[in-house]
């Protein structure tokens, strides 16, 4: 593993994102869509009705952000470069596929997690400042905040591997993005069911899911590196 080559890919990707208006817009607006519904439901509650929230975990609903935002970016990362003709020159350099895949994943991971934490912070600040008294204390619970902080990078990582895996195997950016959104639905469904208390959140569940995601992320890197077939990507062998 060569850090300089990985850093080169990360820097190039991040520079590309920053100068691509549609990517910046997607990274800014998509996460905010996810806080509109919880904020409306929180602000519409009176302090007497705050009990309604005692069985909900509104904060965990925001875990959909690290599930969805990175997968959209990651799904573009390989097939997009392939369509623009910029992949071949990179593959002619001494970079190993593990390095290229890791560089691309990190380039998506860093801004996605930053955006997810930022939106989470905005949500917490809005609830603390503007929700009725009593409501904020029922929503902002220590364990939920901790779960959000820990699971945001884990879910983002998993979504990234899903997105890149799809991106290495399809020939069209739109197909990659549609499949990636579909692939992230189980994660979103799981976080939603937990936030609605359909699946009861517990420490054991959190640890089990954490371990699964850690292993999934580790295997994801290996699996995606294996799927990254230079010959197929260059010669379009189907």
């Amino acid at each position, binding site marked *: 593993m060569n850090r300089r080559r990985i850093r*080169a890919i990360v820097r*190039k990707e991040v520079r590309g994102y920053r100068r691509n208006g549609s990517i910046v817009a997607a990274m800014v607006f998509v996460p905010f869509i996810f806080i509109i519904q919880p904020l409306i439901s929180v602000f519409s509650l009176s302090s007497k009705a705050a009990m309604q929230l005692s069985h909900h975990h509104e904060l965990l609903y925001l875990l959909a952000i690290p599930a969805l935002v990175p997968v959209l970016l990651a799904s573009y990362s390989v097939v997009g470069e392939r369509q623009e*003709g*910029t992949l071949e*020159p*990179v593959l002619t350099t*001494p970079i190993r596929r593990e390095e290229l895949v890791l560089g691309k994943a990190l380039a998506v991971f860093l801004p996605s997690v930053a955006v997810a934490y930022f939106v989470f912070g905005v949500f917490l600040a809005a609830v603390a400042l503007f929700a009725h008294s009593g409501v904020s204390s029922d929503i902002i619970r220590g364990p939920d905040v901790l779960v959000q902080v820990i699971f945001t990078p884990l879910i983002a990582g998993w979504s990234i591997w899903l997105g890149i895996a799809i991106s290495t195997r399809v020939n069209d950016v739109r197909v990659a993005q549609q499949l990636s959104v579909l692939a992230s639905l189980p994660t979103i469904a799981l976080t939603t069911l937990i936030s609605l208390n359909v699946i009861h959140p517990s420490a054991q569940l959190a640890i089990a899911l954490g371990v699964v995601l850690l292993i999934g992320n580790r295997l994801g890197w290996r699996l995606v590196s294996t799927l990254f077939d230079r*010959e197929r990507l260059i*010669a379009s062998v189907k």
Partner: protein
Amino acid sequence: MSGTSRAALSADGLGKRFGDRIAFENLTFEIAYGEVFGFLGPNGAGKTTTVRTFGTLIAPTSGSATVAGIPLSPENGVEIRRQIAIMPETPGLYSRLSVAENLECFADLYEVPDPTARIERALRAVNLTERANDPCGTLSKGLRQRVALARALLSDPQVLFLDEPTAGLDPAASREVHELIATLGQSGVTIFLTTHRLEEAERLCDRVAILNTTLQTIGRPEELRDRLFAKALTVKTAAALPDPDGVFGGLPGVEGWRPDGDGAYQVSVADTGVAAPAITRALVAAGADVLTIAESYHSLEDVYLELIDEDREAARA
């Protein structure tokens, strides 16, 4: 690295198939260090696939090869790619990044020492220092091609593969790229140039190979001409000769003749140095007014078309 070779590039029965489709097969040749080698062929002949195979992007299905002295194998992929650079047909630049940022990324991928100085040197080599901070998306096609060439020069490659470097360029831009390639060739870089622009190959290459899935021929352009076309002199006189057979027949070095228009004759010769003075003397003796006696010239294009036509006819048969 499991072995070394004195040739910059060598292939021994190299081939690549995609399922039932043959991209190229049975390639056998060697290229010396410092040579500018032209790889010609029609569209679909397998030129780009050959470059990608040497560049370790595609694995061969038969034969063996060495690149920069290193045996071509998946294990040697990284080491081979360190020693070479490939300029693909499309420049493949990051359009939102500046010229310098594009080069900076590749300098890091090649781990070049002192990248800033190397980038400046590469930009100077392609006369693009003034445009270093321009986004690549704003550059003309010719300038993008020059950036791609600068990118290929960053790592001081032992072997430089140029895949159709002037495709789609206007004559002025093509000439600039030609001058750059000629300069590189003079500086001792081994260049593997694929093209179907024959005047480009003739002007720039020490040797050429003509590929149409299989290797049709290989050699210096003048050797190929001699190999394929009989030597001939074109004779033009002010008026048609009354008895051309009497003039050309039996002259030393002359093998035959045929009319080539009014007062013009194509005379096949074994040796122009012997035949030309004899023909001149015979024409003067016959009282002919001689306008010109010139050696017939066959371009590389004639060689190429002859070989490709032969190959098509053989395929039909």
